[in-house]
């Protein structure tokens, strides 16, 4: 009986999380277009609905009814599977994220986390890095040189920054002594001054930079920057298959925003009179806004400059950060 209850609860939570995250991802694209437009002195989508709000629906309908082109030379089974991997891993990674504080509905206490895994951070990083297979397989199965170059760029970027984000996380984990995201959140419940970002500013910076790289955001968006390699690994994709990469990318963006908010920015702890749920929404919105702001302001780097930054600057810094944290702790 108990197991059935758990199953029902999990299914409901999973469906809600998937729906909400997919919706947020879609809405993020709209927000991105609007925010960029205002930063660039133009209007952005305006025609569909008031202030273009229904542009989302229009884009959705367009994506769903577009032709699904599969190049004749492509390795078809892999070509077809690859786009599914991107959102699948991005969504699975969300299993270990506590989105909100606990709340009670009809006398039933809900923990808004699909499963409280005690190695949550590791789980998220692991699953998210499986997502790397999406661009890799897509690029290699397309039999298209742009796609191949794009896949190679994506994979080396993700691999390199995976190392940095892992090292950056180690230092805060040493302070907390747990890998569960709920524990990490509770560690920072002492108000504004207990946010980990004050104790680990360097780790925060490194993790944020790695977050930019892992979600293909400017200045590291060379992975599929169209002026150079057309559309990278997604060059030959069309319709909803392309849409899946897109959803995966934005879902990853939201995951990174949640991770940064929970690990460094005090998570969903209430702040002053603002309840925790609102607080974390503000934080992730602010972080996503940062993504957009950087995109509007900066050019992007070259692949070799990105590698240089990752291996020669960020990685030694991350190691030094761990050493210092260790010495201070003992």
């Amino acid at each position, binding site marked *: 009986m108990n197991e059935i209850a758990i199953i029902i609860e999990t299914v409901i939570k999973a469906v809600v999380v998937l729906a909400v995250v997919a919706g947020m991802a879609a809405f993020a694209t709209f927000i991105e277009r609007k925010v*960029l437009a205002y*930063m*660039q*002195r*133009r209007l952005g989508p305006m025609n569909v609905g008031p202030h273009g709000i229904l542009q989302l629906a229009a884009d959705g309908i367009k994506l769903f009814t577009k032709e699904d082109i599969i190049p004749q030379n492509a390795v078809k089974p892999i070509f077809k599977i690859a786009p599914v991997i991107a959102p699948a891993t991005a969504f699975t990674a969300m299993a270990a994220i506590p989105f909100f504080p606990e709340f009670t509905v009809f006398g039933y206490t809900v923990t808004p986390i699909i499963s409280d895994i005690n190695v949550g951070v590791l789980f998220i990083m692991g699953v998210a890095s499986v997502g790397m297979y999406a661009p890799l397989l897509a690029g290699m199965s397309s039999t298209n*040189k*742009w796609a*191949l*170059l794009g896949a190679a*760029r994506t994979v080396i970027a993700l691999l390199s920054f995976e190392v940095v984000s892992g090292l950056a996380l180690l230092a805060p984990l040493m302070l907390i002594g747990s890998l569960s995201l709920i524990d990490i959140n509770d560690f920072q419940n002492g108000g504004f001054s207990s946010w980990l970002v004050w104790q680990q500013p360097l780790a925060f910076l490194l993790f944020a930079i790695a977050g930019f790289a892992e979600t293909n955001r*400017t*200045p590291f*968006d*060379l992975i599929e*920057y*169209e*002026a*150079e*390699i*057309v559309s990278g690994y997604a060059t030959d994709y069309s319709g909803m298959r392309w849409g899946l990469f897109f959803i995966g990318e934005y879902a990853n963006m939201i995951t990174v925003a949640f991770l940064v908010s929970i690990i460094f920015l005090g998570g969903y702890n209430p702040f002053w009179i603002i309840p925790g749920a609102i607080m974390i929404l503000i934080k992730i919105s602010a972080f996503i806004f940062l993504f957009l702001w950087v*995109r*509007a*302001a*900066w*050019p*992007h*780097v*070259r*692949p*070799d*400059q990105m590698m240089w930054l990752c291996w020669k600057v960020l990685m030694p810094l991350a190691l030094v950060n761990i050493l210092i944290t260790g010495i201070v702790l003992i």
Partner: protein
Amino acid sequence: MDSHFEKKFKDLYKIDENGIYILEQTFLKAAIKCLKEEDNFHFLADITAIDYYKYNKPMPSRFAVVYLLRDTEFKNLIKLKVFVEEEDGDLHVESISDLFFSANWAEREVWDQYGIKFLNHPNLKRVLNHKEFDGHPLRKDYPITKGQLCTKTDDLMDEMIPRLEQKGYKSHDDLMFLNLGPAHPASHGTIRTFVALDGENIISAVSEIGYLHRGFEKSCENHTYNQIIPYTDRLNYCSAILNNTAFAHTVEGMLNVTVPERAQFIRVIIGELSRIIDHLVCLAAGLVDMGALTNYWYLYNPREAVYDLLSKLTGARLTNSYMRIGGVAHDFYDGFENDLQDCIKSIEKGMGDALSLVEHNRIFHDRTQNIGVINAQDAINKGFTGPNLRASGVAYDLRKTNPYYFYESFDFDIAVGSVGDVYDRLMVRFEEIRQSIRIIKQAMKVLPGGEIVVNDRAISFPKKEDVYNNIEGLMNQFKLVYEGVKVPKGEFYRAIEAGNGELGFFIVSDGSGTPYKLKVRPPCFPAMSALPDLLEGGMVADSVLSLGSLNIVAGELDR
């Protein structure tokens, strides 16, 4: 002129009525070598040919090849001509591509269009027309209506393999061959660059043009002078006014008329405005190529404002056709000055904002500095002009060296770079926008009144009320439209400083209302031929920036 060339070849040349030195074929190369090495004529502006098949004056032979050279001061222009005799069914001239890099493509073009072979040319193949094309379209016996269907794309391996071997690549199994264009988001227009990649590094590159070739010069031979003006709009469509001006300026030179002062000032003001939008397009596209998206709108919004002004003045946004032989089409409208002031304000604001985003940005510096470097000597040898040459540190600007339209009376500076990399090319353009604004402000202050076209019924159209109300005006209009402006016989080259550099027209007239031959010297044609050298050793990401910073405009490149 008292030069080594004239002493050395004293009796071997004669100067014709157009001021062109006519040489024997056998001394041609020696003469050009002497000019280059002893008289410092280091800059080859252009090579073209003339087909005298239907010319109404007897000539020593059917074909002649014309060379235009400039000296290091860029003040003197020397024109050489050789008549090409047919030998065993073949036409050939000694190639000078070992003396001037820019001769390489220029000679290819002559071969392509006229079928004149250049001996010892390293790679004499078609450049504007398709490789399957049959015949030589600019020959007078090639019918203008003849269409040919060419389907197979050139794989370019015939050029790529020697280049790779030069770099020590015996086999090319480890390399990836990639086509950057023609249908690629970063090929500005339809330009194809074929590269051999090792990872992301470009080992070797070859470029192919001609995807937008539409036979501009052949069309011109079949239209009257005033009808050609709309065609010139389509050369560099980013600054149509400057093309109009260059063409009208050349024809006026042949007619030996001086445009009224007011028209000259209008040409300067509108021309500088065109230069600004030309640079704005280049900068916006160049910056967006490196992902600096916002700059695109900051720079394009003022461009839009200028286009609004131009469409108010000329009736068209892009293809203005504003110049007429002997003047301009309309005078400024009431309130033009206020509109111009608003435009300049928005340009200054947009440019300031864009600069504030990139000027001190480390990523921008890392992406652009020491990328696509070309030094001053190479740049001259490769025929660079305009901002691209000035970025390499050569202060060559036709507005200063060979002033026209009172440019000598304006106070402005030539922006010069030092390294000749992408950064310099972009920054020179930013500075030139500032200088152009200075010129416009000065010109507006001293703008004289008066006529806007020469008052000569053989050149300029009569007023509309005359056309509708009296027979003389009607006849004038009819003659001018039907027969065109009668331009005296002669061969003439004149150039102005366009947005991209020296834009020159070489026109041969047989005395009728239609040019017998017209050759345009598009500033980006030589720059494009040098592109592979700029790309090699860089990365794919750099190639896009190098191409963008040269401001290649396919319309004038392919003609």
